[in-house]
């Protein structure tokens, strides 16, 4: 297994954990409806996302360090760009579907809890990172690496 594959696995697992944590926090009762009063949950989410980005930063530094002998070539760039493109497409559909569902749900009420906006914001970031990692792993797997 190449070092890049290992880096991708760590990235994917970390953002998978962030996505699960996000799902758990937002599925707890009152998270959406009383978002402004949920200081603990907000801090928990911030810690989760900080963990995700910190992992990415550490991996980036590890990759940048010359002593570990990392090298990206045209195949890696192709796998990554395909992963980004597929994730981008799915995310557009995801945001559209969630927005339509929320609009339909709250159309008659006229107002929507602000917690849903935060949910879309957080889940988009988590899903972007997770999907890019997953599609990159699939891309490498297809090439038998």
């Amino acid at each position, binding site marked *: 297994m*190449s070092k*890049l594959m290992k880096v991708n696995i760590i990235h994917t697992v970390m953002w998978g954990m962030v996505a699960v944590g996000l799902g758990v926090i937002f599925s707890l009762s009152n998270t959406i409806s009383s978002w402004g009063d949920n200081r603990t949950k907000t801090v928990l989410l911030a810690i989760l996302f900080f963990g995700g980005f910190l992992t990415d930063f550490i991996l980036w530094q590890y990759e940048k360090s010359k002593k570990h002998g990392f*090298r*990206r*070539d*045209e*195949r*890696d760039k192709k796998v990554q760009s395909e992963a980004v493109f597929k994730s981008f497409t799915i995310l557009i559909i995801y945001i559209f579907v969630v927005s339509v569902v929320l609009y339909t749900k709250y159309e008659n009420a006229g107002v929507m809890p602000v917690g849903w906006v935060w949910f879309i914001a957080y889940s988009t970031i988590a899903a972007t990172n997770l999907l890019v990692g997953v599609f990159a792993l699939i891309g490498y797997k*297809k*090439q*038998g*690496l």
Partner: protein
Amino acid sequence: MGNEIKIANNLRQVRRAKSNYTQQELADIVDCTRQTIIALEQNKYNPSLALALKISRVLGAKVEEIFFLSDVE
């Protein structure tokens, strides 16, 4: 509908026949990773024209000796 056309190669055979380079050595010379050479030899990756030309130059073979079109049913 027409058949899908794929680029195939016999890089492994040419590499062994025309040089003593290992996958890693060839990768270092043509400035790519060993994983890319492995993927190429397993016909799981289509190289860029630049990489194909570099490989053929290093191995002293014509591009079409190494890379060729193959029809997939």
